[in-house]
């Protein structure tokens, strides 16, 4: 009997087009994913060159599991419908009286659906494996086919997931007899998965997420998250304990579900229902022996006036709206959306564990989590409402009423919009509640309403318009929903296939960005224009929807077309023409602006231009150029018209010993003029790359000087394009708008891509040992140290700031002028700010401290002042005196970036990176990053503005790593050592995670290519650890000596080698290995406590036994691990029951061993922390402590770079 039912089902599916459609669609998705990753679109889009193998086991898992996980949306219609079909066709009334058993029936139904899904999965498997080797793919990044990768993905991830989800869906559909409920459960499952995967991003939740993420991906990620490129390319999915447990949990859960289906299921006629209020049952009899009733109906007025029709439209939409909001699917969507929003709110702007004040824009930002939900709800209810009358079979009653189509359609559409408004208002409500919860009472209701109703709603309406059209044209609502989801996800991905312009992607367009300082700024015009463009197309769709609105019982699509044609009369052609006119003219205008008025370059074209640029001009790279020695510039900022212009003079000197006959001038695309004070010919003017060559009539002799007078102004702004960086409040301009000299670089970095274009492999930057490469700093190629003076003007109500000291300030007409002059030499690196600022002032010794801030942003001024003082104190005490008499922090809008940047005596500081931080100073609180960032930026006044490295590898260590080091040390002074672990662990996690995305190479710290994760995170860890090993004083002394030697030096500039040599000098021989581990190589530890126990001794003390392992390994630049070295072999450890030995680089290392207790308030206390010399992998040690020990640790403060920082500590078992 089982086989009978089973094969009957299979036969049914193989006779249906649906199976073939699914198979073909998923075949194509699978092939597209793998072929795209292997670079099949390189001809039309950017080259996919990389050191990553695209069909490595991990990549195969991604490419295979992704389409398989989309397939989940079809489970209800495959696995669910095996059983629901029996109900829908009512055949169950007959079938259930047949003599077969529950087991046979259910297992046959379940397994047949399961089998059919696997047919599609096999198609995906074939598609993915073929996609990698399709002609046109880049075979350099594809390995030979490897079946194990696919089998691993299938058996470890895909199959168990399929089992879990299909059993849940089978259960839901069996009991509700409704595929729709199955569909809703899919959406819920997918959202829960996303939620758990989101949890994973927070290191503290990883274990839980790994265990309970039903997709299993978090569990595999748990093991692979720190894999380097080479490990990702080579290793198979590790079947770690967590992954096994995760799989077991969900396989058993799935089995449990199946078992309960079997238990509860019965061959009954009626669906299983839950009833919350059980009523007493009673015997029902009818007395309908009716007599004759006189039909005497009351008088009614039937009114079809326009006014009444509008009223009807509104009333009907309320009925549809109530249907939506009372449905379980809507309620579940709301609950999930609120849950997500709550998580979003709590993680809001969380930097180092510190949240920000709940400003309204932050609340709205967190509300972005609603986007997905509102769209899903729109797609879902567009489908339900448009198909509702037919699904309920009430359509014949409704369709014969005298209500015109525009009301029937309009009421549904209006109901969808009302639903969108409800969901949007939830963003406001939850935002305000969150603000109240946080004791923040500055409610900007108007701001909420403006963004939610004005800005957000348009986009959702645009999607709703497409949704109703699709649901009208397509008779199967699930297919309609699927199409909408595919469009929603797929449209943004079109860029990958070379479709980059928003005007070709439905609903797309530039977004808007809000800043407290500057509101929505000028971005809003652009935003609206694109929205008008799409909205008019959406309304065209709406007219089409009206024409094709399903009414009555048309028998085929041909008939529907002729009905549509007959409806296309009266005002509709006029509406359509008008909308098309708006659509085409706004689109035409956008196209004109973005493609004709301003030459638009696709990323492919940009790639080609980069190649051409290098081929054309790289030859001038080593031509001598004069150096800028003085800059005097007048800048006018116009915050009202958003324009800026500047005129200035460079004084340049030939500092070389050769004559210079040509000048290579680089300038931006703005409108500019150049005039030298020496006669010359313009021999080349490249308007594409903005690169000009001037030949001097009389060559410039060594020591001679030449002046350049230049003017620059932005191209005129248009309605949708702001050609300057000026904003109405909080302008931040820097000197990149001004001309510069020489070939500035900007080449393709990826060697595989370079090879394709016949370019030699990229040298990136020269090695610091290359003495010929030390002529430039890494900040400027055409200047060393300069004199600087500027006059900045702005509107009357704003303050303008630039490096230097204010000499004069005056008002002329409606303009306000500021003259700044620097009294000492600075780098050729300056910026201009202008805004309506409040000013906070303070003093540190003789130095004036000022913070220019937006009036509402006064939360953390004290912390920032404190940070300035602490940094000035620390650096001037430990390294050298501060070179200026003034230090200013200037706030700028987050729309210009979320960073702070140190210019000479001037630090532009984004509103996002400290001004609105809500710092919690308690033990549990996160890091005070307002303070931290301030210290970092002030430290740059030394580490960048005094000591600046040559433009070679590793130079950023001299500025960024050292500034990080200073802030860590200052933080440690303020917070104490214990709070450091939190910070160090976070830096470690960021370093280990970021390096897995490395596409080029990872060098050791002192040779780094400028990657942030090396010079910030790794750099800070290393210098902090180093100060711990050799002592903070010793280290700072060496650094101070180094500063003395190299500060404000002329070329050749210093390098990381120089600094490391200074450190070596003060490092004892026993710790010499540190120099190699920390600076010269990529060295990582795997330290862990294996076992520990303690015992109270007779004298009241405690004996603690600790068994721990230490292992150290190195990575090459691709992340491949190795243990041996030229001078010494690796060491190993193996016991009898170990299959493979453990390896380590030769050890003579000093590592902290710690024992910790608790004080009366349950705070951790150090009972013992001391460095021990470790020379074996496996170690046992006994320590006597005075108080009761609670926890032990090897490198307990995570000072070392350890690939698993979780196992460094262990609680002592009692």
């Amino acid at each position, binding site marked *: 009997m089982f086989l009978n039912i089973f094969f009957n089902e299979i036969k049914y599916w193989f006779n249906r087009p649906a199976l073939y459609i699914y198979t073909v669609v998923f075949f194509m998705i699978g092939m597209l994913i793998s072929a795209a990753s292997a670079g099949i679109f390189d001809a039309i889009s950017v080259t996919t060159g990389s050191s990553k193998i695209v069909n490595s086991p991990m990549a195969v898992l991604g490419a295979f599991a992704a389409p398989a996980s989309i397939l989940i949306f079809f489970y209800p219609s495959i696995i669910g419908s095996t059983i629901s079909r029996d109900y829908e066709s009512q055949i169950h009334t007959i079938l259930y009286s047949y003599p077969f058993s529950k087991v046979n029936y259910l297992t046959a139904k379940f397994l047949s659906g399961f089998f059919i899904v696997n047919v599609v999965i096999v198609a995906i498997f074939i598609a993915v494996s073929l996609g990698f080797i399709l002609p046109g793919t880049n075979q350099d990044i594809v390995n030979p086919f490897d079946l194990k990768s696919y089998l691993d993905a299938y058996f470890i991830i895909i199959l168990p997931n399929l089992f879990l989800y299909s059993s849940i869906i089978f259960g839901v559909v069996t009991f509700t007899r409704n595929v729709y409920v199955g569909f809703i459960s899919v959406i819920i499952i997918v959202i829960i998965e996303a939620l758990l995967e989101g949890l994973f991003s927070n290191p503290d939740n990883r274990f839980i997420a790994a265990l309970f993420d039903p997709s299993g991906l978090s569990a595999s990620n748990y093991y692979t998250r720190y894999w380097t490129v080479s490990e990702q390319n080579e290793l198979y999915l590790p079947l770690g304990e967590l992954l096994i447990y995760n799989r077991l949990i969900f396989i058993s859960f799935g089995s449990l579900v199946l078992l309960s289906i079997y238990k509860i299921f019965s061959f009954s006629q009626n669906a299983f229902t839950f009833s919350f209020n059980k009523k007493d049952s009673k015997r029902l009899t009818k007395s*309908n*022996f*009716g007599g*004759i*009733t*006189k*039909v*005497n*109906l*009351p*008088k*009614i*007025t*039937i*009114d*079809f006036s326009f006014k*009444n029709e509008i*009223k*009807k439209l509104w*009333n*009907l939409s309320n*009925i549809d709206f109530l*249907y939506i909001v*009372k449905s379980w699917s809507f309620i579940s969507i709301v609950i999930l959306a609120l849950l997500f929003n709550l998580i979003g709110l709590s993680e809001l702007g969380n930097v180092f564990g510190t949240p920000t004040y709940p400003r309204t824009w932050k609340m709205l930002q967190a509300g972005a989590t609603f986007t997905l939900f509102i769209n899903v709800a729109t797609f879902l209810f567009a489908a339900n409402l448009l198909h*509702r009358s037919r699904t*309920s*079979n*009430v359509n*014949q*009653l*409704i*369709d*014969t*009423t*005298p*209500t*015109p189509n525009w009301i029937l359609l309009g009421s549904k559409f209006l109901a969808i919009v009302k639903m969108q408004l409800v969901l949007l208002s939830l963003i406001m409500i939850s935002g305000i509640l969150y603000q109240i919860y946080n004791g923040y009472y500055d409610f900007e209701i108007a701001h909420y309403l403006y963004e939610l109703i004005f800005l957000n709603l348009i986009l959702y309406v645009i999607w709703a318009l497409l949704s109703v059209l699709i649901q009208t044209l397509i008779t199967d609502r699930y297919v309609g929903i699927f199409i909408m989801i595919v469009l929603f996800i797929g449209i943004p991905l079109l860029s990958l296939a070379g479709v980059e312009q928003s005007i070709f992607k439905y609903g797309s367009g530039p977004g808007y960005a809000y800043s407290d300082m500057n509101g929505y700024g000028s971005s809003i015009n652009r935003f609206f224009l694109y929205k008008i463009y799409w909205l008019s197309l959406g309304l065209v769709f709406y007219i089409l929807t009206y024409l094709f609105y399903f009414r*009555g*019982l*048309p*028998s*085929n699509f041909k*008939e529907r077309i002729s*009905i549509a044609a007959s409806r296309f009369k009266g005002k509709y052609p006029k509406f359509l023409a008008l909308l098309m006119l708006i659509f085409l003219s706004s689109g035409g205008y956008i196209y004109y602006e973005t493609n004709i008025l301003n030459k638009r370059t696709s990323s492919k074209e940009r790639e080609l231009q980069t190649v051409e640029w290098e081929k054309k001009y790289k030859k001038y790279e080593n031509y001598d150029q004069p150096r800028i020695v003085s800059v005097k510039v007048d800048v006018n900022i116009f915050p009202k018209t958003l324009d800026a212009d500047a005129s200035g003079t460079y004084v340049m000197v030939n500092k070389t010993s050769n004559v210079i006959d040509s000048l290579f001038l680089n300038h931006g695309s703005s409108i500019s003029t150049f005039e030298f004070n020496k006669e010359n010919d313009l021999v080349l003017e490249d308007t594409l790359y903005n690169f000009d060559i001037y030949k001097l009539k009389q060559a410039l002799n060594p020591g001679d000087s030449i002046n350049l007078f230049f003017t620059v102004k932005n191209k005129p702004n248009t309605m949708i394009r702001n050609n300057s960086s000026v904003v109405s409040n909080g302008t931040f301009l820097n000197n990149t708008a001004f001309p510069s000299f020489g070939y500035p670089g900007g080449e393709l970095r990826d060697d595989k891509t370079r090879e394709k274009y016949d370019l030699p492999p990229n040298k990136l930057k020269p090695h610091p040992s290359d003495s010929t490469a030390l002529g430039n700093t890494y900040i400027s190629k055409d200047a060393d140290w300069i004199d600087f003076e500027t006059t900045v003007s702005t509107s009357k109500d704003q303050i303008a700031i630039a490096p230097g000291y204010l000499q004069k300030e005056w008002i002329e007409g409606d303009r306000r002028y500021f003259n700044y002059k620097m009294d000492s030499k600075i780098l050729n690196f300056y910026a201009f700010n202008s805004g309506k600022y409040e000013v906070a002032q303070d003093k540190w010794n003789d130095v004036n401290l000022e913070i220019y801030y937006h009036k509402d942003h006064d939360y953390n001024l004290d912390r920032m002042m404190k940070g300035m003082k602490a940094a000035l104190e620390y650096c001037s005490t430990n390294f050298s005196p501060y070179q200026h008499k003034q230090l200013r922090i200037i706030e700028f809008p987050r729309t210009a970036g979320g960073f702070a940047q140190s210019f000479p005596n001037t630090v532009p500081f984004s509103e996002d990176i400290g001004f609105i931080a809500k710092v919690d100073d308690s033990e549990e609180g996160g890091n005070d990053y307002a303070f931290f960032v301030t210290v970092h930026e002030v430290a740059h006044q030394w580490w960048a503005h005094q000591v600046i490295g040559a433009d070679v590898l590793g130079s950023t260590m001299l500025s960024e790593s050292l500034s990080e080091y200073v802030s860590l040390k200052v933080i440690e002074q303020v917070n104490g050592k214990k709070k450091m672990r939190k910070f160090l662990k976070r830096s470690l996690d960021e370093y280990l995670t970021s390096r897995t995305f490395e596409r080029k190479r990872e060098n050791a710290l002192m040779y780094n290519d400028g990657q942030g994760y090396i010079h910030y995170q790794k750099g800070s860890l290393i210098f902090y650890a180093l100060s711990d090993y050799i002592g903070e004083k010793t280290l700072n002394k060496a650094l101070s000596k180094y500063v003395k030697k190299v500060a404000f030096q002329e070329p050749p500039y210093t390098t990381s080698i120089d600094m490391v040599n200074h450190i070596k000098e003060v490092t004892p021989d026993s710790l010499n290995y540190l120099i190699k581990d920390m600076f010269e190589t990529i060295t990582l530890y795997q330290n862990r406590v294996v076992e520990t126990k303690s015992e109270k001794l007779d004298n009241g003390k405690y004996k603690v036994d600790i068994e721990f392992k230490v292992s150290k390994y190195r990575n090459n630049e691709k992340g491949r691990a190795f243990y041996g070295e030229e001078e010494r072999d690796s060491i190993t450890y193996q016991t009898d029951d170990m299959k493979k030995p453990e390896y380590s680089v030769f050890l003579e290392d000093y590592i902290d061993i710690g024992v910790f207790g608790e004080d009366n308030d349950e705070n951790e206390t150090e009972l013992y922390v001391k460095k021990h010399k470790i020379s074996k992998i496996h170690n046992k040690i006994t320590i006597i402590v005075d108080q009761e020990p609670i926890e032990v640790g090897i490198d307990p403060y995570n000072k070392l770079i350890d690939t698993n920082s979780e196992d460094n500590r262990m609680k002592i078992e009692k």
Partner: protein
Amino acid sequence: MSLIIENLTKTYTNNVKALDNLSLKIGKGMFGLLGPNGAGKSTLMRTIATLQSPDSGSIIFNGVDVIEDQISLRKKLGYLPQSFGVYPNMSADELLNYFAKLKGISEKNERKALIDKLLEITNLTDVKKKNVSGYSGGMKQRFGIAQLLLNNPELIIVDEPTAGLDPAERQRFLNVLREVGTNSTVIFSTHIVDDVKELCNDMAILNGGRILRHVKPVDSTNELKNKIWTKSVQRDDLESAENEFNILSSNYNVDNSLTIRVFSDKKPGTDFKKAEPQLDDVYFIALKEDQNNNS
């Protein structure tokens, strides 16, 4: 008041000609549309009710072209399809209110008064707060009548309304229909001859998309006076009787014999008795003639 149907043709995609050049004129009163399953009754009614459009032909109601101006007809139309569903979780009260809105009754008070009255007529007042989706077949059919009457329709179309109703429900239903049908045109399709006999002043027999006969029920039985004969035969003799006589129908008796009804101008045999003509006989004769014409 008249409904004029001319040359109506409709062919479905599976090449079934549901309406075959059908013409019909229907006046005021109850009009019965009789025909076997699949005769095209529903197609005809749906087409009149603006749910389907014909391939060709015209339908004019009181001078208005129904195919061109559907809304005008719908304003005067009350339609009860053969089977219909309702939105789940909505009571009779709510649903009627919803339909009343759709039918253009804008005054809230008027709607309420009308709905209350209709619920009373259809004897649903007690269950008006219950979900219609939970109603029994008869109650649902009565609800169907209530929604149909909401706009005081001039043209009422009911498609096989009595199928599946118990005798009491059926009777009640027909009574209500009869009451409302006095002032309007009621087209009423059925395959139960008794329904027509009891109610209709005019009728047509439809099969294969064509009108086989269009007569008044009274006239049609009068025409058959002295032409219908019955006789009791044994089961085994039925085949030979079928060859010998023009049998219209045969029914089992309790003793396992059969009573056959035969259509014949004169007495077919000595043991035949003259029978009173019934509408059934009209129906069977029409179908039989049509069958013979086709073969």
